[in-house]
């Protein structure tokens, strides 16, 4: 255990102390105690910058389960560090923001910060673990803490619904990823990501390559809210705004991005990976931006915007994976897509974080997030307005903010993708830049709606619950920092070179030798620039006429939405499971018996004939004497009588006849002990049957014949046949000599008895007898208890309680 393990686990340790701080320092907002930790961690991780910038990595191992290769291995490289800095940096700002957002008196702050710290630690664990199973453990911990945070206001039904939805979808993906991890382990025999990357040839040639790839992508897509798994993210907006800002814009939803980036060296280069990652990414990008325009809730706009931006990053990672396959246009042409992905990852975290905080401020100060009620807040909240402008313009991809740079690079990447001359890209390639462009237009529109519908237009104070005014300074500081970063990264993108470059080396495969990070505002008049100009022109036009064409959203059939599908699926699952259970769990013992016997027939019969075990060999069959034949006839007649007689009394007597003929058989086959016992036992049981018969209630005592039922007939016939077949087969193939000759020889010599049966019962196998008499005793006690112990009186009440 080294310092960095302690660093990753420190949020959990602090989470233990939070309730104490909350309880014993009531006058201080608990958030202040928490704030220190992410700040310290941020500074701690900054120290590693120099390590990764030199191309070095840091590894540290803590033994956990060494016997099966599961150790807590921390592996810190460019990618991990980038995420760690995002997590701690934005974490600190979110904690600061939440101090002013959540009221000390009204909210349960201790649980909030415990969950938040749990999430922070889990997220650090995800991005810094080298061992896949350790990463998976942290991965599920993020799902759980996110579940807890979404349902923070658990008395609201919508919160619980959103939490359940996100839990079901992300855990579904998480389990798929676990299966993928196990498949990888089967291929390479190691859980370590680095060793898997080292064995990439082994993996790509393995037949389990594609299943593992699909399972990993399922995990990444569900976590990162890719189409069609994005539906949980808008419903997760029921969480407090700091949570939405932290989890659902900057960190947790990027865990899937992280996974794709991290596993790129293993899977990239395969057409399946390229098509799935970039295809789902671009679909998500389009669908998210398209859906965001119709939303009326500010957080819903941001949720769909997050979905769309995550799709953008995902598609860039997909296109970038082509670098692993080949590079034919110039030097490392596709690495620019990966570069754009990493750069946009940072940009998105900055502007989306600030936008969520802005929306939180608007919500906090006006009491609503509905854009139909908002308007004209520009003069009342000038600072918030400025922050919103910066964030939204960056999101729309306007110069001079950082969003413009990443959008330009995004277009470059997509244009290059259309020039890939493999994997059917010749025919389908043009879809990429076209979809990207359309999605960017929609992005522009919803960004403008976000700002101008909220802050300009007519001020409607009568619709607002509170009198709006500028937010307190503490609430403004975090978005101000983030917005300044938007501007700074916009003007000086090369500042990020030291962070981006090592991250690129982690993502790209080793056959890419050199990556040069060059991000400039001005590239001259190229296609990308004209595309951006087109986005702005068309976007402005569409924004102004949104009232006219907005009706297209109503064309889309409401019944076919993915949410309806999800809800319907849950209901159908519930009903289906219930119907399935009801279909065979009828509560009637006769149905269960039919199932048990049918299963027995199928299992034994199929086994008997499929393994060729059935054979009839009559060589060692003893000749049947006249007595046996007569006795057998008597038995069969009495057994058949049981089935066809009308009265129960006759059935009981016929049963007795069967029993006595068995005892006669014992006599015939020279088993005097058995004959004696059978005789007496049969007498006793017939007496007991008669007793039962005598006590039957009058009302239902219908002297009916047994009704004929086809199922029962077939089942009984089947059971009989199967047992006969098995009996014949067993008798026909004796594999070895019986051990009875030993008992014959030893019963007098060693046990001093001449009655072999009795000697076996009490001496050789006395243990069985001991427990048989135990069974008898238990039966006696049971009968005694059942008859004597009457807890319910005749009215049905319980005796002890009625007093």
């Amino acid at each position, binding site marked *: 255990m080294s310092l960095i393990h302690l660093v990753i686990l420190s949020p959990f340790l602090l989470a233990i102390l939070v309730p104490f701080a909350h309880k014993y320092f009531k006058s201080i907002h608990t958030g202040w105690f928490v704030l220190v930790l992410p700040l310290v961690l941020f500074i701690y991780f900054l120290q590693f910058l120099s390590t990764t910038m030199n191309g070095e990595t840091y590894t540290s191992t803590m033994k956990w389960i060494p016997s099966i290769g599961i150790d807590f291995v921390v592996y810190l490289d460019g990618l991990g560090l980038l995420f760690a800095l995002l997590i701690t940096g934005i974490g600190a700002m979110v904690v600061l923001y939440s101090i002013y957002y959540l009221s000390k008196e009204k909210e349960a702050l201790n649980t909030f910060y415990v969950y938040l710290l749990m999430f922070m630690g889990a997220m650090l664990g995800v991005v810094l673990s080298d061992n896949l199973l350790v990463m998976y453990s942290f991965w599920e911990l993020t799902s759980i803490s996110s579940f807890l945070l979404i349902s923070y206001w658990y008395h609201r039904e919508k919160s619980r619904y959103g939490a359940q939805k996100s839990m079901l979808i992300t855990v579904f993906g998480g389990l798929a990823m676990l299966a993928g991890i196990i498949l990888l382990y089967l291929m390479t025999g190691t859980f370590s990501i680095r060793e898997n990357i080292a064995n990439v040839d082994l993996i790509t040639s393995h037949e389990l390559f594609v299943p593992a790839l699909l399972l990993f992508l399922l995990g990444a897509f569900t976590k990162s809210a890719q189409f069609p798994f994005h539906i949980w993210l808008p419903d997760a907006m029921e969480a407090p705004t700091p949570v939405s800002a932290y989890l659902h814009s900057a960190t947790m939803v990027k865990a899937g991005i992280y996974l794709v980036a991290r596993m790129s060296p293993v899977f990239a280069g395969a057409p399946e990976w390229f098509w799935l990652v970039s295809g789902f990414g671009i679909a998500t990008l389009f669908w998210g931006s398209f859906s965001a325009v119709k939303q009326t809730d500010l957080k819903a706009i941001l949720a769909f915007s997050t979905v769309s931006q995550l799709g953008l990053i995902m598609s860039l990672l997909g296109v970038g994976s082509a670098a692993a396959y080949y590079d034919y246009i110039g030097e490392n042409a596709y690495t620019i897509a990966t570069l754009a992905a990493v750069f946009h990852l940072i940009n998105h975290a900055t502007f989306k974080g600030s936008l969520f905080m802005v929306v939180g401020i608007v919500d906090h100060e006006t009491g609503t997030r509905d854009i139909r009620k908002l308007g004209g807040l520009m003069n009342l909240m000038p600072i918030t307005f400025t922050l919103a402008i910066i964030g939204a313009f960056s999101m729309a991809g306007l110069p001079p903010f950082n969003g413009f740079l990443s959008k330009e690079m995004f277009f470059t990447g997509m244009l290059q993708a259309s020039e890939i001359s493999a994997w059917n890209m010749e025919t389908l390639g043009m879809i990429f830049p076209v979809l990207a462009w359309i999605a960017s237009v929609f992005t522009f529109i919803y960004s403008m709606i976000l700002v101008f519908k909220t802050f300009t237009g007519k001020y409607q104070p009568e619709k607002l619950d509170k009198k709006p005014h500028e937010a307190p300074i503490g609430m403004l500081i975090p978005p101000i920092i983030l917005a300044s970063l938007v501007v700074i990264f916009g003007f000086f993108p090369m500042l990020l070179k030291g962070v981006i470059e090592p991250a690129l080396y982690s993502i790209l495969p080793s056959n890419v030798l050199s990556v040069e990070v060059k991000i400039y505002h001005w590239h001259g008049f190229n296609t990308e620039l004209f595309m951006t100009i087109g986005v702005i022109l068309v976007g402005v036009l569409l924004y102004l006429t949104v009232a006219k064409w907005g009706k297209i959203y109503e064309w889309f059939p409401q019944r076919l939405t993915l949410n309806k599908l999800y809800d319907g699926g849950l209901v159908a699952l519930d009903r289906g499971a219930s119907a399935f259970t009801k279909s065979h769990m009828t509560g009637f013992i006769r149905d269960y018996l039919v199932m048990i016997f049918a299963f027995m027939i199928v299992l034994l019969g199929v086994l008997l004939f499929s393994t060729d075990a059935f054979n009839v060999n009559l060589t060692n069959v003893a000749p049947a004497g006249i007595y046996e034949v007569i006795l057998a006839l008597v038995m069969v007649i009495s057994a058949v009588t049981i089935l066809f007689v009308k009265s129960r009394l006759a059935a009981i007597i016929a049963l007795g006849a069967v029993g006595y003929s068995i005892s006669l058989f014992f006599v015939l086959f020279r088993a*005097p*002990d058995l004959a*004696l*016992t059978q005789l*007496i*036992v049969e007498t*006793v049981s017939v007496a*007991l049957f008669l*007793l039962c018969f005598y006590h039957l209630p009058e009302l239902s005592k219908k002297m009916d014949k047994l009704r004929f039922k086809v199922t029962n007939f077939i089942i009984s016939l089947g059971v009989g046949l199967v047992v006969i077949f098995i009996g014949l087969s067993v008798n026909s193939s004796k594999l070895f000599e019986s051990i009875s000759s030993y008992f014959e020889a030893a019963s007098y010599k060693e*046990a*001093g*008895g*001449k*009655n072999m*049966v*009795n*000697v076996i*019962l*009490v*001496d050789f196998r*006395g*243990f069985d*007898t*001991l427990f048989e*008499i*135990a069974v*008898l*005793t238990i*039966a*006696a*006690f049971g*009968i*005694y208890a059942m*008859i*004597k112990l009457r807890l319910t009186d005749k009215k049905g009440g319980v005796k002890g309680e009625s007093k």
Partner: protein
Amino acid sequence: MILQTTTTLLTFIIVIFSVYLFFAGHYTPGGGFIGGLMTSAALVLLLLAFDKKTVQNALPFNYLSVAAAGLMISIITGVIALFFDVPFLTHTFGYVELPLLGKTALTSTLPFDLGVYLVVVGVAMTIIQTIGESE
């Protein structure tokens, strides 16, 4: 009256037969199980001929305890073997000079069988008495 007189006579014969079956078990057909059932048959006959109270006064046994005692005896027989450093339920036998019977073969399975006998008597009587008593 005839029934009761016959019963008193018959019961003795049946009990003696059952005791014979019990002791003969090691050499000829019989043993604890059949012996026990026979004895209970004799007791049932008594129950049929007389009422339950009379039988209870003449033979004041709690048959549940009889069954428990039988189980106990059988287990103890097995446990004793452990003291002689042999596995559970190891039996032994030998010829002993008894004052009345002379040279007799005695085996440690006899107490085990006695346990079986008592259990069977106890169980059979418990079942029959409990069911008979219930309304």
